[in-house]
Every structure is written in C-alpha cells, then in structure tokens.
C-alpha cells in the first residue's frame, strides 16, 4: 500500500492500521528533520508527535492526488518554524545563559564502538549540529532537506514552493557558511589528536 493509499484510508475510513503504517514509515525522517532544524532531540521528538497528531486531526484536509510526503514535510516544517519563533521570543525575554545546552546528539547503534570512538563521533556531531544552528532558518531548511534527508532539488522546490534556482542558491550559500564554520574546528581537532598521539608514542 502506497503512502497515498494509506492516507486515503485514514481520510475516508479512519483506518487506524493505515495510520500506524504511515507513522512507522515516516516517524524517523520527521523526527530527524525536526531535531536538526531545532537542534534539540527532545523538541524534535515532541514536534514529531505533534506532526502526526496534526496529520490525523487534519485528515479531511488532505487533497486526494497530492503527494503525501510533501504534505507531511510541510506540516512538520511549519511546526518547526513555529517552534523556532517561540524559542526566539523566549530567548529575548530571558537573560542569556551562555553557550547552548549539552549535546543531545546521542548516537544510534553503539554496541560495536569503543567509548573513545563514540565520544569522538558525538563531539563531531555536536560541531555539525551547532554549525547548522548558526545558519538562517531558510538556509538550514534547504541544506537539511537536501543532504540530511536526501530530497531532490525538484522535491525541495515543490515542498517550499520556490524555484529550483532559489533552492540551489540557498544550499550553495549554506555550504559556503558551514564550511567556513566547520573547517577550522575540524582542523584544530586533527592537530590536537596528532599531538596526543605523539605524546602517547613518546
């Protein structure tokens, strides 16, 4: 059963099984998108739940014939934008609390990793997370959809209702900024690791 067929069943028959199938297929991509755009795994989890709640609540609004994925991505993106707006308002009303919270980037399957490697990967993922958060929302959205979620340029253009040239331009700018942010930090880590290895060797 395709996503569209499942959604049609949810829409016309309130089919709980079809809805569960859609959730099972899409919960990870939607969670990842929300976590990456907000930079917070807890908020990503909450937004994912809210996105599926909204899909069910608005099932009658789904246009038969439209792509389910586009509709779902759009709902999740709008929730992320609302959340980011709220966060900015909260941040303005509170005193600055210094650097961002501790990393929320717990890794996936970890059984085969050594604690050291796991730590290194967590730190590197944290660098990427912070660099992404340093981008404007529009640039972050485009680059996350393209390289983290693997959407094609045409699909992003359809989803955001913007010309492909605009999407290309946004991703190019995002890549240039990310590279400026990340390269010095990764270079510094490499240098530090080399020095440590030398010390251990001596």
């Amino acid at each position: 059963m395709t996503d569209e067929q499942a959604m049609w069943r949810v829409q016309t028959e309130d089919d709980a099984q079809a809805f569960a199938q859609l959730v099972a297929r899409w919960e990870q991509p939607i969670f990842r998108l929300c976590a990456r755009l907000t930079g917070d795994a807890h908020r990503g989890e909450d937004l994912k739940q809210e996105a599926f709640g909204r899909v069910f609540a608005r099932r009658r609004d789904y246009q038969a014939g439209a792509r389910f994925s586009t509709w779902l991505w759009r709902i999740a993106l709008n929730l992320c934008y609302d959340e980011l707006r709220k966060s900015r308002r909260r941040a303005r009303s509170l005193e600055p609390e210094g650097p961002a919270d501790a990393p929320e980037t717990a890794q996936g399957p970890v059984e085969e990793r050594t604690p050291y490697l796991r730590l290194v990967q967590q730190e590197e993922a944290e660098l990427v997370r912070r660099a992404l958060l340093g981008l404007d929302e529009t640039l972050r959205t485009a680059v996350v959809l393209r390289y983290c979620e693997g959407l094609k340029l045409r699909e992003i253009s359809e989803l955001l209702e913007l010309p492909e040239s605009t999407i290309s331009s946004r991703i190019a700018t995002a890549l240039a900024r990310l590279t400026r942010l990340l390269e010095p930090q990764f270079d510094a880590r490499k240098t530090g690791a080399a020095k440590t290895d030398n010390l251990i060797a001596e």
Partner: protein
Amino acid sequence: MEHPSYEELFNHLEGVSSPDAARRMEDHLQLCPQCAAELAGWRRSVKRLRHYEWPQGQPAIRSAWSAMALKWAAVAALVLGLGFGLGRASAPSPAALKESIVSEVRQQLRQTLRADLLQAIQQSQDRYQGTVLEALARLQEQHAADYLSLRRDLETAVSVADTDLKQKSRLLSELTATVLAKTVPAQ
C-alpha cells in the same frame, strides 16, 4: 582570473552543469587552488552532514501496556534518582536538578500525549465500527420487511387468481349446460 559563482560551484558539486560548463569548471579548478579548496571544503561539509548519525526518535505509537510500563519506569527512575540525590552528601547543583526535572516532565508529557493519541484513534475506530454495524442492522431489517411485503403480494395474487379461475370454471360449466340444452332436442 574570473572565479565561478557559488551557484556554478554548486551545480558542479551536484553534477547538474552542462558538459561545456563542467569542462570549463574542471579547467578552472586545475589552475585555481582557491576554488579547488573551496569545493573540497564543500564536499567535506556534505559528507559531514550525511555521515554523522543523529539521535533516533522513539516510536510514535506504543501499546497502552507499554506506555503504562514506561510511565511507571519514569516514575520509578524519578523516585530512585531523587532518593539517590538526597542520599548523597553533596547535593546536586540547582541547574542539574532543574535539567533532571525538565527531562522527567518532558518524558511524562510525551507518554501522556502518546496515550491520548492512541486513545483518540481507538475511539474514532470504535465510532466507525458502530456506524457500520448500525447500517448493516438497518439493511437487514429492510430486507426482512421487503420479503414479507413481497410474500403478501404474492399470496394475494394467488388468491385472486384462484377465485378468478373458479368463477371462469363455473361460467364454463353453465355455458356447456346451456349449449347442450339447445343442441340436444327434448325427448
């Protein structure tokens, strides 16, 4: 030397440039270490975005039992955590305590939301099943009424036909008697 724009570099990275543009870009990259380094940095950024694993989300829907078990587990963890914290000689910092409480509250809220969503789906499905069963019962009643009505009509038709037949038979007997009386001369 004229450097390519970000868009041209991006098209080259994505492999969507025309063959001519791709050749010109390759020639330029051979001669311009600055642009070559820029593009190499972009490639590393793309790899970093794709390569690093991100946290896994929790399943959106769990069974009511599992949700309840998680809720109890969260409460038990909270109680144990508080007991441990109180038992320690050095009390936790307010920031750490706040973080722990926020995390627990978030966890419980998530469980509640999940249970509510599951319940809403179940109720919706029950309503739907109830509607279908009612419609089926109505349909069956209608069928029974139609059958009875048809049977009554049929019996009426049979009865009328029977009466009509008897009447015609009587008329035929009378006609036969009359004809016989006229054709056979009186002895």
